[in-house]
């Protein structure tokens, strides 16, 4: 079931009805939410629901065991068991094929035959998200930031909560579990705000992301079912396609987050923001504070800092950055494209860090001149776009081919459909609008009478139907 499918509004209405009918009965309410969450995931594949249940049981048991012992060695072993189990499952389903293929390629090149078995398991939707989320629970208990929960129901609901189960934002247990322990209080303003976020997400996904994807990006970059046109496309066509993908992935992913946040808000839950206008970032460091915030902070807190962060010397800092971004790239998928993308960002982050340290050591402060800030933003934006080219290309060789085409500037025919131009420009303009304007629009929507809100919902549904025929999956579902 996708957020933009016909089933979701009906599913959500039933869940909301049950949730508020059980507002004063915590156990029954959580049981209903958990059942709804399992149903939501099971609509995709009931068998793989077992993986979520398995992850829940492992982390529940380990967290209780962590609370029951103060011995550091034992606590480390328990944490290692839960992390290894989670990463083992993730590794098997997501990376075993990738490693097997590459190992066989290497063995074949060395004349040793191709004997590494390939599991060919179907990739469970959202496994990267719920695995990291479950790990954060145990890690926070280990660090003493949270007490282990006696209630298996609460832990299960934290891991499987349907609005963010398959594509984030990745929740922290210390942020979310306390919300489960409070009885919800219905607030019409908050509910209207949630509705507004859902509508915003739908517009981003169905009207912007899907239009850009279907009308241009898929045609240029190709899809698993259709070859790319990169070898013959004009450089300008590829450039526009890269810009289009830049906004497609942003609107697709942030649209999902908006719907998740809005859905949570309808039930009185606050899910943290996951994006903050990433394409106005003035540096790569700034970009990663604005893009997929829940993942970047997870990697910072649970990988980068334990590896030493910026406190164990310059070399260690760069090494920690490189490893974090490489693994961050690999988190997105089992493909050399994602490894290269992660390495690209890691390299640029290290360079950014080095440059900023040099300037600081020289007593230079960041410039406040508007022209300089504009240049920084444009430069950062285009570096990010370059990374997206590798991210989107079907293979590494496709990405290299695309880059090579820029040497034939002026060659080839450019065809950009009118709707792509219109939608892309609209997406850029909206992205540049100050946050305070968008907050004002949201506040205006909340204050409007119910019939105006209803007309807005209907208008979005009709506009989305005019521009899309089928519910296309969200890009980040594949992670």
């Amino acid at each position, binding site marked *: 079931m996708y957020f933009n499918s*016909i089933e979701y509004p009906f599913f959500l209405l039933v869940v909301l009805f049950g949730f508020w009918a059980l*507002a004063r009965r915590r156990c029954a309410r959580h049981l209903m939410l958990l059942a709804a969450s399992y149903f939501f995931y099971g609509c995709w594949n009931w068998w793989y629901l077992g993986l979520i249940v398995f992850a829940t049981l492992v982390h529940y048991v380990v967290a209780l065991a962590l609370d029951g012992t103060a011995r550091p060695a034992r606590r480390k072993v328990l944490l290692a068991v839960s992390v290894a189990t989670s990463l083992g499952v993730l590794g098997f389903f997501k990376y075993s094929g990738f490693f097997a293929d590459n190992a066989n390629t290497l063995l074949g090149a060395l004349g040793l035959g191709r004997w590494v078995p390939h599991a060919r398991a179907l990739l469970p939707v959202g496994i990267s998200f719920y695995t990291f989320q479950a790990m954060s629970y145990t890690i926070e208990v280990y660090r003493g930031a949270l007490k282990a929960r006696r209630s298996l129901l609460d832990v299960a609901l934290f891991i499987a909560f349907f609005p963010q189960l398959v594509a984030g934002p990745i929740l922290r247990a210390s942020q979310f579990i306390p919300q489960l322990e409070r009885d919800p209080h*219905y607030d*019409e303003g908050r509910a209207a705000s949630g509705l507004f976020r859902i509508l915003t997400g739908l517009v981003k996904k169905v009207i912007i992301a899907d239009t850009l994807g279907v009308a241009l990006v898929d045609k240029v970059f190709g899809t698993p079912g259709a070859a790319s046109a990169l070898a013959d496309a004009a450089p300008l066509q590829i450039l526009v396609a890269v810009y289009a993908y830049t906004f497609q992935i942003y609107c697709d992913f942030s649209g999902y987050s908006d719907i998740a946040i809005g859905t949570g808000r309808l039930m009185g839950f606050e899910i943290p923001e996951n994006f903050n206008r990433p394409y106005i970032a003035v540096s790569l460091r700034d970009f990663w504070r604005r893009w997929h915030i829940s993942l970047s902070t997870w990697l910072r807190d649970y990988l980068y800092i334990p590896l030493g962060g910026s406190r164990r010397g310059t070399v260690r800092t760069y090494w920690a950055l490189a490893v974090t971004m490489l693994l961050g790239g690999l988190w997105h998928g089992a493909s050399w494209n994602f490894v290269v993308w992660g390495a690209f960002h890691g390299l640029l982050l290290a360079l950014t860090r080095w440059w900023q340290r040099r300037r600081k050591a020289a007593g230079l402060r960041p410039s406040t001149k508007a022209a300089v800030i504009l240049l920084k933003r444009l430069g950062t934006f285009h570096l990010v776009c370059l990374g997206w080219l590798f991210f989107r290309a079907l293979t590494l060789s496709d990405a290299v081919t695309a880059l090579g085409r820029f040497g034939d500037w002026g060659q080839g025919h450019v065809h950009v459909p009118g709707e792509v131009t219109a939608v892309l420009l609209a997406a850029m303009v909206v992205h540049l609008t100050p946050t305070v304007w968008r907050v004002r629009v949201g506040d205006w929507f909340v204050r409007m009478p119910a019939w105006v*809100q209803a007309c807005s919902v*209907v208008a979005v549904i009709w506009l989305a139907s005019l*521009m899309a*025929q089928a519910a296309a999956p969200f890009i980040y579902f594949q992670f």
Partner: protein
Amino acid sequence: MNRLRAILTGRIGRVVGVIVALTALADLAVERLGVRYCQPIGHEPTMAAWAYQQGAADIDVVFIGSSRIHFGVVPAAVEKAFRQATGRDIRAWCLGIEAGTVMAYHAVVRDLLQGRGAPKVLVVGLSPRAVNSNSTRNGLALTYFGSPADWWQECRSRGVWATDWRAIASGVFGRPTCLGQWAMASAGYRAEQVRSILDLRGGIHAPLGPGESEEDLPGGPSREKWDRLAAARLQFVRDDLLRDFVILGRADHAFRSMARIARERGIRLLVVNVPTHPTFDRSHKAGEYEMYLESMARTCDELAVAWQDLNVPPWRSPDCDLWRDMDHMNRRGALRLSRLLGSGVLPPHLPPSR
């Protein structure tokens, strides 16, 4: 419960209520204005029906069926062959519906082929997939071609949790966009597409141009590629289109209703078994095929409707070069079949008027 009552009668309840009311009003407006087929971008089968509604008049023969008909019939070629065989002119039209089943054909015949839109002869192209009452594609008929009365009837006959509730919900909430599409069409949006459909009279392939011959047209993929395609396609067909195959039920009901409507409107009905790919016998063919042939022949005999099996020579050719994929003819194949339809199949059903 008081809290829930307060929520339901408060903002959320009002928002949901207004949404339901607006959608219902819009659905009724679509039916009243007769713009059901003016559906959103990209859905070609309804655009072909829309074009028929806009520009088709004095049509002698309509071909209706799935995409096999859409790709297999070239109306201009049918007309030319008929003229060469009989010396008379006719006007033909192709209403092939991608992923169509007999439920979709019934809805189109019932709601479109009436008055000036009613032809003299209706040729219905069938196959086992089109008459499977349990086909997953029956929902498409409800979504794109069904009327609100059809939706209500479906809910009543199968209970509140109708099997095709998703199709009905898609229709209910998606259909009102016809109003927007219609407003844009009135301003010329997609006019070129409608003109193109009118020029080809609903078909996909163009007739032969000056200097062109069928023999010079490109053929299909190699035999080796067909064998690879056949295995993959067979699995899909068996698991999806022919799953739980049974004709009795809503497919049978739709067919009989279509036959009755044709009879009442004075439309001569000819039901044909569409030709299949040369590899069909060793790839797709399964027990359902014999069951379907026997059942359709018996039903047509019972209803006094003409039935013709075109999946035999001379209509069915052993030449793989006439196909673009496992199910659809390429231009060469479509021109050949259209020629045979116009010269051999149609003349007995379109006698000269006295």
